[in-house]
């Protein structure tokens, strides 16, 4: 029964470009564009939730890894003319290596200092990206990033990008599931909830924090690379601190530490403003207030609300039937 639901659901997701063409013919391109962004942001949010939600490290460095992956692919593809099949793994690898290098000193710090240290790293990365014009083109942006081509397969149309995004999201979701359940999940959660006790249980807190941080950073780098392959242009404005705020909103709005929650949060965050067509400044005001209210009143986010609603719905039938 569940398997059929899965197959049908997956088939429906894959068929979206045709469904959109049929249901909203004039808007198909726009809908696909929003969905591509939603998929990429969903994957990015999941990679962030690994670090923030499951191992409990409030890192503000994620925009830097996203940006590093983006710039690596952008420059390798435009200047060194590396094919996508090699540039993408290179972007992921670079982000992972930098995460490793940054994580080692950062995790020696206590909570507040860790947040500030990662934020400092993110800011330095942004300043360098903006000012090292010879290398990154600075505010002039890297342009003409070629569409991905792997052998005979060329990803150039919107549906093709949609499937790329969907595929990436599915992969990241699978990885996320594998890392946050069973023994690994237990180890991560032990470090998050009681680091002292985790050590007494022979769990090395540093090892698991680093693992989440490096994997999260590597995935962020990969998403960055896919993102610029789709958009075709990369400017330093992509890796500002606001991205951290956006990710925090997505994760906390949706439900920190929950796969479904984070995806819902990412979808709401990406799709909603498109639907509402808000001006960017008003959008940020709403997000700021929203984040404030959520983090204080509903730290479990939408996922928590959904769970409470469904358990309340079930109870009467259990006693009634």
């Amino acid at each position, binding site marked *: 029964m569940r398997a059929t639901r899965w197959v049908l659901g997956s088939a429906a997701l894959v068929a979206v470009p045709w469904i959109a063409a049929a249901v909203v013919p004039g808007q198909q391109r726009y809908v696909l564009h929003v969905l591509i962004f939603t998929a990429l942001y969903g994957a990015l949010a999941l990679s962030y939730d690994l670090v923030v939600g499951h191992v409990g490290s409030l890192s503000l460095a994620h925009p830097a890894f996203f940006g590093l992956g983006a710039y690596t692919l952008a420059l390798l593809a435009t200047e060194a003319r590396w094919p996508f099949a090699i540039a993408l793994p290179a972007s992921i690898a670079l982000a992972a290596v930098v995460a490793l290098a940054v994580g080692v000193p950062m995790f020696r710090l206590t909570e*507040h200092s860790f947040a500030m240290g990662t934020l*400092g790293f993110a800011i330095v990365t942004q*300043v*360098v990206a903006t000012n090292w014009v010879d290398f990154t083109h600075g505010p002039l942006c890297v342009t003409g990033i070629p569409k991905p081509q792997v052998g005979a397969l060329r990803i150039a149309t919107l549906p093709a990008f949609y499937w790329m995004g969907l595929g990436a999201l599915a992969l990241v979701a699978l990885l996320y599931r594998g890392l946050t359940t069973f023994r690994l999940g237990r180890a991560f959660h032990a470090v998050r909830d009681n680091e002292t006790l985790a050590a007494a249980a022979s769990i090395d807190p540093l090892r698991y924090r680093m693992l989440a941080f490096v994997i999260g950073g590597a995935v962020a780098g990969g998403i960055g690379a896919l993102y610029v392959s789709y958009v075709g242009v990369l400017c330093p404005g992509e890796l500002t*601190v606001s991205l951290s705020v956006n990710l*925090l909103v997505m994760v906390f709005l949706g439900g920190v530490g929950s796969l479904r929650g984070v995806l819902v949060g990412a979808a709401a965050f990406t799709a909603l403003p498109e639907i509402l067509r808000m001006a960017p400044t008003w959008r940020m005001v709403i*997000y*700021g207030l929203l*984040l404030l209210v959520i*983090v204080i009143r509903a730290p479990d986010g939408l996922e928590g609300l959904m769970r409470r609603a469904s358990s309340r719905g079930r109870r009467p039938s259990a006693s009634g039937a």
Partner: protein
Amino acid sequence: MSDLLEQLVHGLTLGSLYAMVATGLALMFGVVRLINFAHGEFYMLGGYAFWYAYVELGLPYPVAGLAAVAAMAVFGLAYERAVIRTILARTWHVQLIATLATSITLTNLAIIVFGTQPKEVPTRLSAAILDVGGVRMAWQRVLVLVAAIAIFAALEWFVAHARLGKAMRAMSQNREACAVVGVDVQQVALATFGISAGLAAAAAALVSPLFSIFPDVGALLTLKAFAAVIVGGFGYVRGAIAAAFLIGIAESLAAGYLSYAYKDAIAFVVMVAVLLVRPQGLFGRRIGI
């Protein structure tokens, strides 16, 4: 040589600014153990309040400055009541995210209300140049340094002798004991926020004639002030002041001799360097402000 001295003067101005902002941050952390990510917005809003009083209402400089300080002090009290009190008992994750959210909201509201164009607030002192043996500086810079020193001296006196100030110091050292002894913990927290916000506004009134006021100014300022607080040793006001001047001078020298473009990164490079070598801060773990 005069070039170097001018850079140093500029560094002292920056240092005074960062020190005044960092002091507020250190006070808040010291007294209520809370990181206020929206602190830079106290400066930004104080700057706009000053601009409004000085440029729009045409009040004389000192009056406009004091009006800005008073306005922000009230804002600080309101902010403590509305936001801080709700998050004081929560984990530091919640506090960080909540104050970060407030910062984003305030910054974007400022863009909506005031627009993105920076506001210039030139005063007579920012235009008048003082020449000391070939070293040229605006008189305003002298005012900034003198006023900053006066403010720090007043703060020292306040914490050592005034009843409220002593209560603040006591709370920063041992909060539970204070509650037991009958100190009104909430009142002290309220006052701390009022003072911190007022300090930020004073900094804005002093420094914005030299730089300008724009909605994003708070973000970088918060982070650099944080860098100073971390380098000085969390919650230790004197350490934060010293670190702030260190960062200000380093930034000015780097801008002059290394690269103007990367000057904003200097504060964080210093911070990360100190955190790696001496995570407890330059002056070690102190208890109390």
